[in-house]
């Protein structure tokens, strides 16, 4: 009996704590998402992919509108120049000038590495919607940061068990994102740093992805944003299948 009362007290406590914090937390997340995505964004960036043996550098430009549409074009190295990607909702196409062909990425390839990096095709497609797919709770709050725990909604098609996100209070931008599986094993760690101003907005210019699984130790993917324009008008023609070939050159 005593145990039950205790449990009840605990539950009430939790409930109130949650409901109090929830609105606050959701606002944090909304803000963060807004700061990362914008209405539209044009980003130029360099991607360095490192593993035990090799290191490669790629340059690319991406155009995105909201969460659902994006277009990416590879600028460097020469052998990959002109490869374009188009993502609309959950579907992704790729155009390769060398073979002059547009290929729709099939379901079975979605979790394959994107351009040899530690991001998957799926990461690009579902880069999305933390506020749609996760329940957020505030774990800790310090002077400069919030630590949020994101648990996927039951119906959300995400592979993670949970995500722990550190958010800078100053900019409302993420600093570290840790991805866990269902058994709470850390699978990968994404850090954002070097926040710089672009127009009226601040944006992290260095992204570092560190896979933590045993067979991927030693791999890392580094992204560095060199130019960014937010909320500019982007021609709707970028987000059509024809754009893949048209804007390849």
């Amino acid at each position, binding site marked *: 009996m005593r145990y039950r009362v205790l449990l009840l007290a605990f539950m009430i406590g939790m409930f109130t704590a949650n409901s109090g914090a929830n609105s606050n937390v959701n606002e944090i997340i909304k803000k963060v998402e807004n700061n990362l995505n914008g209405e539209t964004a044009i980003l130029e960036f360099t991607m360095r992919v490192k593993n035990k043996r090799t290191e*490669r550098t790629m340059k690319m430009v991406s155009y995105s509108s909201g969460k659902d549409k994006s277009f990416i074009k590879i600028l460097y190295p020469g052998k990959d120049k002109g490869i374009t990607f188009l993502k609309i909702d959950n579907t992704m196409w790729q155009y*390769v000038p060398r073979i002059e062909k547009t*290929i729709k990425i099939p379901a079975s390839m979605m979790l394959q590495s994107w351009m*040899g990096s530690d991001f998957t095709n799926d990461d690009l497609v579902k880069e999305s919607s933390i506020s749609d797919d996760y329940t957020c709770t505030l774990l800790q709050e310090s002077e400069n940061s919030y630590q949020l725990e994101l648990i996927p909604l039951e119906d959300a098609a995400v592979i993670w068990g949970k995500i722990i996100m550190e958010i800078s209070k100053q900019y409302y931008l993420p600093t570290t994102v840790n991805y866990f599986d269902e058994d709470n094993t850390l699978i990968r760690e994404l850090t954002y740093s070097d926040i710089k101003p672009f127009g009226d907005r601040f944006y992290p210019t260095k992204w570092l992805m560190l896979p933590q699984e045993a067979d991927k130790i030693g791999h890392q993917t580094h992204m560095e944003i060199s130019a960014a324009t937010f909320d500019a008008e982007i021609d709707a023609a970028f987000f059509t299948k024809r754009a893949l070939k048209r804007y390849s050159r």
Partner: protein
Amino acid sequence: MLIKLALRNLIAYKKRTIVTVLLTTITTALLVFSTAWMDGSHQTMIKNAVEIYPGYLQITADKFRDSPSFDHLIFDADTVSQQLSQNQDIATFGARFESFVLFSANEKSVGGMLTGIEPEKEQQLSRLYSSLHSGDYLKTTDTNSAYIGIELARRLKVDIGDEIVFIGNGADYSFAADTLKIKGLFQTGLYEFDASAAFIAKPYFDVIMAADNYATHFIVQPKHPEQTVELAAQLGETIGSQYQSASWNQIMAELVKAMEIDSLFGYITLAIIFIVVFFVIMIYTLLTVFGRIREIGVLRAIGTTPRQIFTILLLESCVLALISVIAGGLLGGAFAYYFELHPITLSGFEDQFKQYGLAVSAIPTAFEPWTILRDMAVMFTLSVLSTIYPIIKVNRYKPVEAMRHV
């Protein structure tokens, strides 16, 4: 003296002699031939499964087998190649680079395996060349010509001369894509393989996949395939700890075990036949021995010891068994030999064989003298053992009883 007596008796009691000899001969022949057939079919199945593509012996980087990623490649193929070429027990060897890619043609995209091979060497290492269905096999100097499985071609709806494209990752994880022109189609009979594999010449592969001097594995063809296990162990020690060498029975452990079960049931079946034969021989021995009971009584009466009688009778059995086992061994061996040279073809059962990785329906028997000798020894023992009970039984009679036995 006893042998002479035994021989004379054998001639005198022709019926027993003939029946026993015939029965033992036929059973021995049956055993010898069945063993040769079973061993032969299993060897053929394994040989096929091994030779179609996986090869007798594979050298990979140490961790590749557990975690086949591009982090665990053979990064110095030339050195491995040099080391292998110094080994006297190796007939040929060749490097391969396998990578999983997306093939695409006619709006159809299919995941599959693109492999860079050394076309000339591969001719001796696998059945790729002999599985040519139409078109031509690869040459080392070929560039973007592909040799693809017939089912893969069917899935992509392409034929010889058509183009397919692939996208995938190079050995440095960089993006790789190219257009390939279909030069030839192969059909090994293994559906999964024919539906997903495509090959191009390694020199060109190395260029487009950034795989120069790299390999996922080496295939080694031993001079004596039956000593693969020893060779694998030996190479494992000499080639260095960053590499691993595995023989076919490690690579295809399940198939090996499946063959063991099949043999087990084969032997159970034979054992049941043997039991029946055992009984029949026993019955015939009993009949003849008891037919001679009066004679035995007389022998005992004139002072022959039971031991001598036992020896005579046992000698008879031994002589009979020896003659029949030799005859049976020769007969069964002859059949085994003949059908090794002229394999039995079970046409119409290709599908069933394919299921077990056997792409042809011709099954040669395995003519192996040591196995035949083993079978002959087994039959000899059985045949002699089966006569012991009647012999002991008849010896238990007292001379007088025996003489009066009706």
